[in-house]
């Protein structure tokens, strides 16, 4: 079977986040990583490959430097990598992004498409379901378990207070939660091989059945009216006290604020 995993390069907002003295985000200091939910999706694909055999292709849309995460994916075990990059694709919202990726996917044979549920920079969770909609395949979001049974995929679909076990006929798109698994590390041999392999690079002309008017900034129905770094509420008091003093301190504040 053929599995395509859609991945995204994102700034690392976990751990490596630094702020400028004025409280704004210091983006320059942040590392670019493979989005965590996408990595879990890749791991799920690699496990299917090991269990029943599959060809795993990773696909990303981004700047040329997104080549890094494609190499990482191949070092983990992906067989092929495709980078979709073109100046006309820049500034895309989720509609234009999903249109672009769907246009690239139409060139490929796929049984299963896996995307991360959401990327840690935008947190929208929209691109996966929208790709499925453009391609006309079933979507199962929020997967915390994926297994293959013949022509079907069985997914444990998470909700707030329950999960559904869902059976869908392939081809199908599944969005992965990072809770799905613990992704493997790259192996030294894998890293070596990954840099010998070729990354296929596609531009606008390689996208199938896509109108120019649906791409990039111009093709994005949503427009940013304003963007700013969040001004956080400043720190309050901080005290170092022993247990008895701490209790007295907290009780004082609770009384002052009429909680008790």
């Amino acid at each position: 079977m053929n599995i395509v995993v859609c991945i995204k390069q994102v700034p690392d907002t976990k751990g490596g986040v630094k702020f400028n003295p004025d409280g704004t985000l210091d983006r320059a200091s942040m590392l670019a990583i493979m989005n965590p939910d996408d990595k879990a999706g890749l791991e799920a694909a690699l496990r299917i490959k090991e269990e029943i055999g599959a060809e795993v292709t990773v696909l990303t849309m981004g700047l040329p430097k997104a080549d890094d995460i494609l190499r990482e994916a191949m070092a983990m075990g992906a067989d092929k990598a495709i980078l979709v990059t073109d100046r006309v694709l820049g500034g895309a919202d989720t509609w234009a992004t999903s249109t672009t990726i769907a246009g690239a996917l139409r060139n490929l044979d796929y049984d299963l498409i896996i995307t991360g549920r959401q990327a840690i920079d935008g947190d929208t969770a929209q691109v996966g379901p929208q790709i499925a909609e453009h391609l006309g395949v079933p979507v199962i979001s929020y997967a915390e378990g994926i297994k293959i049974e013949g022509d079907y995929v069985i997914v444990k679909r998470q909700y707030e207070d329950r999960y559904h076990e869902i059976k869908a006929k392939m081809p199908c798109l599944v969005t992965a939660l990072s809770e799905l698994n613990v992704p493997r590390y790259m192996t030294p041999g894998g890293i070596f091989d990954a840099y010998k392999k070729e990354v296929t690079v596609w531009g606008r002309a390689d996208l199938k059945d896509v109108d120019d008017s649906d791409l990039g900034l111009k093709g994005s129905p949503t427009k940013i009216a304003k963007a700013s770094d969040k001004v956080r509420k400043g720190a309050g008091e901080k005290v170092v006290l022993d247990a008895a003093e701490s209790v007295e301190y907290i009780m004082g504040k609770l009384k002052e604020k009429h909680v008790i």
Partner: protein
Amino acid sequence: MGLEEYKGVFIYAQQVDNELSGIAFELIGKAKELAADLDTQVTAVLLGHNVKDLIDPLAEHGADRVIVVDDKELEVYRTEPYAHALASVINEYKPEIMLVGATAIGRDLGPTVSARVKTGLTADCTVLEIGDYPLNAAPGQEQLHKQLLMTRPAFGGNTIATIACPYNRPQMATVRPGVMQKLAPVKGAKAEVVEFDPGFVPNDKYVEILNIVKAVGTVENIMDAKILVSGGRGVGSKENFQMLQELADVLGGMVSCSRAVVENGWLAQDYQVGQTGKTVRPNLYFAIGISGAIQHVAGMEESDMIIAINKDEDAPIFDVADYGIVGDLNKIVPALTAALKAELAKE
């Protein structure tokens, strides 16, 4: 496309097990404000099977009209029949604004429907208002009025963006649960009821649900709590959460937690606060043994008062806490519980 044909503020009235979710009422509350600014009405779209009992509660919370699609195919949420129903309602009734809750259902239904009706969707909004796009008149670009301006956090809560959808309709947004205020219900209020049947023709997208497994013991919702006693990795073990529970009990609050706690299996995900959990804004939030990763902070920083207890004086939680105590939670928490008990016994 004739954008002026699109009228009215619509909300998706999410129900699960034929019970309306809180977000449905929150969306009506917000929609009433937007509709007042636009001089239009609020329509709730109710999808499900045998859901007609849910119409009156929507009316009592402020819906002027309820469009109901009631069909066996909608008995349990599945993306395709629900997306088909909602997209059909949009195409038939042409709302200018369509609001959906940013729930595990809405974040699947919203993007699917927006792609189907070809419009923009802004995710996880925390502020919605009517205004101009662009915000300030600029030469060479027509300034449009009465646009929906949708504000949302991004970048793990580090940036805030205001988004418009000026040239497509409906203007769609998913809205974070727990942020908008529901209105006090007006007993006996009635809405205009419209029954709509878009027709359902099952295909491969009508996936099969093999099994539904509900989490047990999740009666109360941390989003409704006025006081939360929240624990993180620093609490140390599942057993130690009993200590937090006792503090919560004496204050009449609830226990909640950070993501690490869920990952360690100490508490169920229903109790998780943060970017991948719930957004809460209680009157009082205790952050106990929580380091304060931005993903966590994004879900609790709007709390009225935050008290943090952590042994690490450099923990980032102290940057958002109103009152921070550097100390040993194992000693402070039980002593605080005892002191509160004594204090309350006096009254």
